[in-house]
C-alpha cells in the first residue's frame, strides 16, 4: 500500500494576459476521488495538464507526496495517467506498437501478453494490429485509456472521460474508476452530470477566475 497526497496551493494560470484561474486550493489523499467542473473555458483541461506535469503553472504551486516524499517535477510522469481530448497517439503505429513503445520508453518490463491483456481490457484486442490512423473516435478514446493505465499509475487524471464512448465503453470507465487501486487518487474533469458519480467532492472552477490580480 502506497500513500499519495496531492496538495494544491494558491495555484494560478494565465495565458499571456488572460487569467484562467487563480487562488485554487485543495488537497486530496489516497483513496479519494474528486470532480472538477466549470463552464467551457473555465480551465478544467488546463488544470489537468498542469497536474500531469506537462504545462507550467503561472504562480502558486502543487506537490505530489508519495509515502511522505516529495515527487520531483520530472518524475511526475511515472505516477500519473492522463486521458484527455488533447491526447494524440502515434497514428502511424498500431495500438499494440504504441503500447509496446510506451512501455519501453518508460523503461517498464512488460511482456507482449501483458500488453494484450490491457488491450483486451479496453476492448481493442481484435483491432490491435490496425494502425491507429484507421481507428474511430471511440476507439481512439479507448487506446488513450490503455496508455494511461499501462504503467499502473497512482494518479488517474480523466478529462471528459466518457466522450465518444458507447455504452460498453462507459461501463469500462465506471469499472475502472470504481475498482481503481485503493491507494490511488482520481480526478475527473467533466460537465456531464452522469460523470459526477465518479467522485465524492466537486470543485467548480467558475469560482476561481473572477479573483482579480493586482
Amino acid at each position, binding site marked *: 500500500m502506497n500513500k499519495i497526497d496531492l496538495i494544491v496551493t494558491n495555484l494560478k494560470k494565465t495565458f499571456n494576459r488572460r487569467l484562467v484561474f487563480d487562488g485554487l486550493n485543495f488537497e486530496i489523499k489516497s483513496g479519494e476521488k474528486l470532480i472538477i467542473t466549470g463552464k467551457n473555458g473555465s480551465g478544467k483541461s488546463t488544470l489537468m495538464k498542469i497536474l500531469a506535469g506537462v504545462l507550467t503553472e503561472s504562480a502558486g504551486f502543487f506537490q505530489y507526496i508519495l509515502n511522505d516524499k516529495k515527487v520531483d517535477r520530472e518524475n511526475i510522469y511515472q505516477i500519473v495517467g492522463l486521458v484527455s481530448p*488533447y491526447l494524440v497517439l*502515434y497514428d502511424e*503505429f498500431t495500438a499494440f506498437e504504441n503500447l509496446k*513503445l510506451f512501455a519501453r*520508453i518508460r523503461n517498464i518490463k512488460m511482456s507482449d501478453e501483458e500488453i494484450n491483456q490491457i488491450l483486451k481490457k479496453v476492448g481493442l484486442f481484435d483491432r490491435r494490429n490496425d494502425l491507429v490512423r484507421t481507428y474511430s473516435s471511440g476507439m481512439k478514446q479507448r487506446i488513450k485509456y490503455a*496508455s494511461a493505465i499501462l504503467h499502473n499509475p497512482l494518479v488517474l487524471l480523466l478529462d471528459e472521460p466518457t466522450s465518444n464512448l458507447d455504452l460498453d465503453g462507459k461501463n469500462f470507465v465506471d469499472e475502472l474508476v470504481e475498482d481503481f487501486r485503493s491507494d490511488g487518487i482520481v480526478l475527473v474533469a467533466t460537465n456531464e452530470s452522469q460523470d459526477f458519480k465518479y467522485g465524492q467532492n466537486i470543485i467548480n472552477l467558475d469560482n476561481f477566475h473572477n479573483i482579480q490580480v493586482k
Partner: protein
Amino acid sequence: MKKIYYIFYKDFSSELRMRFAINALIMFVIVAVSTILFSLGSENAPQNVYAGMFWVVVFFSAMSGLSRTFVSEEERGTSLILSLIANPISIFLGKFLFNLVLIFFINSIITMLYMFLFQEFLIKNWMSFLLAFLLGNFGIAASSTIIAAIISKANVKGTLYPVLAFPVLLPLILMLIEITKSAMEGNPINDVEAEFLVLVSYDVIMITASILVFDIIWRD
C-alpha cells in the same frame, strides 16, 4: 540510457514509415549538388571554393531536414503523449541522437557525391577532415535539435528556422570551412589547432546549454 534509445527508435521507425525528413533531405542534396555541377560546367573553380560549397550544402540540408523532429510532434499533437511517458532530458537526447544519425547519413552522401563529381574536391589530410566531420556533425545536430524545439513552439515555424539557425551555426560553419580548406591543401592538423579548439568548445557549450534550457522550452 534505454529510454533515450527507445525515443530514438520511435523516431527511427516513424521515419521509415512516414519519411518526414529523409525524402526532403535527399531531394535537397540532389538539387543543390546538380545546380553547382551545371553552373560550373567544364570550368574549374579554385580549390577552396569547394570547401565552402561543401559546407553550404550541408548547412542547408540540415536546415531542411533536422527541424522535423520536433515540428512534426507539435503539428500532429503528439508532444503531449511524449511528455507523459518520458522526462525532458531523455526526450531531448533521444531527438538529438536521431538528428545525429540523420546528419551523419546525409553528410556521408554529400561527401561521396562531392568526391565523385568534383575532381578538385580532393582531401589530402583525411585525419583532419574526418575529425572536423565528426565534431561538425555533432555540433550541427546539437544546435539543430534545440532550435527545432524552440521553433516547434512558435507560430511561424517555416520561416523562423533558418533565421535562428544561421547566427547559431555560423561560427561552426566558418571553422569547418577553414579546416576543410587546410585539409585539402594537405596541411598538418596542428595548423588548424585553434579552429579545432573552437569546434570542441562549441560542441560542449551547445549540448550543455541545450540540456539546461530544454526543460523550460518543452513545458512552455
